[in-house]
Structures are given as structure tokens and as C-alpha cells.
């Protein structure tokens, strides 16, 4: 077997992996038009940041920061980044769950998760609610199917009316 350690060490590998995850997540957020996909990309970017944070406390030949876990007298890795990552992971899952709840509600009413479509309908609704003239057809891209009718404004938390499709 080739001696890999002579070429690259664990830290560099993990560093490349962490940066790669952040970049892939950023790319996904920027390029995707599907809200659910963007949520997945966000999770990847957060994972990359967490990995980088753990790496910031790692040193080779050190054991986990638990007394009695490794051999007596062995040096340990920095425990603080691990605490920070624990916190960050739980924050991440909380935000993700909340976003899922919002996605479900949005999908139930609009029936799509395409960002461009959603923004168009949001703009339309905002304009309508503000009593402004609806953007004229020249602003709408040609050749697409017409927008479905805007659901009438309903008070919060009333029963959701079925949307005609």
C-alpha cells in the first residue's frame, strides 16, 4: 500500500473536505431554484462550517477530552471547539425543522416550491394587498403559462381553502 501519510495528512484532508462542503453548499444555495433543495444545500454548508470548527481544535497524537478515556497522561485535543459544534449542530437542526414547517405551509397553498414562481406570486400578492396596479405583462417573461389566480386574502389560521388547480 502506498504510504499516503507522506503525501497528505489527516488535517489537510479534512480541511479540504470542510471547505469543499461549504463551497458546494454555497453553490447549491445560489444555483438551485427549488426551496427544498436549497434547504439541503444549507445543511451541507453548515456541516462544512462545523467540520472546520472541530478541526480548529485538533492536534495529532492527542486523545478525546474525557478524563480516563485515553492512556493516563496523554495530551488531549482542545475541548472548546467540540462544545461549540455541539451547540451549532442543535441550532442547525432547529432551524431546519422550522424551515420544513414553513415549506409545508407554503406548498399547501401555492402548490409549488420553485423560488422564481413563488417570488412572482409573492410580489403579486404584496402589490394587490397594497392596492397597487399589478405589474404589467411586459415585466412577465413571455412564453410561460399564465399565473394561477391569487387566493383571496384570508385571516391567519383559518381553515385552508382548497386551491383550484
Amino acid at each position: 500500500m502506498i504510504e499516503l501519510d507522506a503525501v497528505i495528512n489527516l488535517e489537510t484532508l479534512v480541511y479540504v473536505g470542510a471547505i469543499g462542503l461549504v463551497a458546494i453548499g454555497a453553490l447549491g444555495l445560489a444555483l438551485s431554484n427549488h426551496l427544498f433543495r436549497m434547504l439541503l444545500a444549507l445543511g451541507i454548508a453548515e456541516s462544512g462550517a462545523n467540520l472546520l470548527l472541530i478541526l480548529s481544535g485538533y492536534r495529532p497524537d492527542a486523545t478525546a477530552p474525557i478524563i480516563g478515556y485515553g492512556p493516563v497522561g496523554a495530551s488531549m485535543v482542545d475541548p472548546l471547539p467540540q462544545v461549540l459544534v455541539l451547540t451549532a449542530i442543535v441550532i442547525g437542526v432547529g432551524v431546519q425543522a422550522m424551515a420544513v414547517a414553513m415549506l409545508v405551509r407554503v406548498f399547501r397553498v401555492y402548490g409549488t416550491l420553485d423560488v422564481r414562481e413563488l417570488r412572482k406570486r409573492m410580489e403579486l400578492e404584496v402589490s394587490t394587498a397594497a392596492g397597487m396596479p399589478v405589474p404589467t405583462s411586459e415585466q412577465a417573461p413571455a412564453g410561460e403559462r399564465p399565473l394561477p389566480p391569487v387566493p383571496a386574502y384570508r385571516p391567519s389560521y383559518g381553515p385552508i381553502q382548497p386551491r383550484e388547480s
Partner: protein
Amino acid sequence: MRSIASLLFAGGLAFLLLALGAQLALGDPAMRVGAEYLRIAGPELGAANIVTAILAGYRGLDTLGELSILFAAATAAGLVLGRRRADAPRDPPGGLILRAGADLLFPLLVVVGIYIVAHGHLTPGGGFQGGVILAAAFFVAVLADPSRTLNHAAISWIEGLAGASFILIGIWALVEDGHFLAPLLGTGTMGQLLSAGTLPLLSVAIGLKVGSELAGLMADISDTEARDQ
């Protein structure tokens, strides 16, 4: 156009960070406070697991903030999803294997979750990890048979009281010791279940809070009616 710009941005970000990697001295962290924690956390707090000691001790306020974030997320999700309609269709119950499996899994997960919460100051694990497993236990039961629902009143009491007890332990320390969340009750003998002062108490509060919060969140999402037909 936008895709090219994003590609450039992400590529540039990655390149920048990779280029900076050379200056970063990977694998040789500064260990300014880290070494200090390693030296004194064990004797000062009496916890063998230094990560837990920092989490609930030195950085207890972060942990409180994190519990609040989870609470805020669950609250916001509850606001967004609102109440389910009584006549909304539910998912059908899972198959026999899933239900039998869930019945077997439930006590196992509860026991493991409690064990991990209670031994957080000794071994890897603690309030969060145990709480997640507890939440999973209840959620597996709901997933196997959606007609069984979680008792929302009970969940809101547990999460309210667990969070409140974390803060009240902190305020107790403020009154007793003059510092919010200062460790109380001595350190005990390291390695025993009843050691490390108030740390295990805080761990239990964290576990209950995280468990009830996540269980409530998942139940809320799973409870919402599927899209109207």
C-alpha cells in the same frame, strides 16, 4: 449569468480559503484557553467528560441560548402550522413489522436515552444526545401508528418546566453564590453517577427540554394535514 456569477463566487471562496490554509498551521491549534480547560476543568467541576463540563459549566449561558433557540424554532413552527382540522386525513398506520418493531424499540430507546442523559458528565453524551434519542423514541411510536398522537398539553408542560428549572438552578446559584449558573453542591468523587454538583441536574433539564421540544416539533410537522385534495 447568475449561475456563472455563483460559480465564480463559490469557487473564489473555496480558493481563498484553501490558499489561506497554508497560513493556518493545521493540527497545531493555539490552545490558549483549551489547555487551561484541560488542566482545571476536571478538578474544578468534578466531571470526567470535559466537553460536558464546559457545555453546562463554563459555557452554560451558551447552552441556555441554544435551548432557547430550539424553543423559538418549535414555537415558530407551531405558529406557522397552526391547528390541524379535525377531519383532516391521516397517514395510514405502518405495516405490522413497523408497528411491532416500534413497540420493541420504544422502551429500548427510552432506556438508552435516559442512560445517556444521566451519564453525560462521565462518558460521551449528555443532555442533547440523550434528548434527541428520547424524542426519537416517542416519534417512532407516532410514525408507526399516526392515530396515536402525542399529548400536546403534556409536552408543553414538560418543555416549560424543564427550561424553567435550568434557569431557576442558575438563579439559585445567583442568590447563593452571587453568580448566575455557578456550580453548586460540591464536586463529589469524579467518576460516580452522583458527582459534579449541579451538572447532572442541568443535564437532565437539557435532556428533557431538547427531547420534548424535538418530539413536539416532529409531531407538529407530522400532524399537519397533507395537501388538500
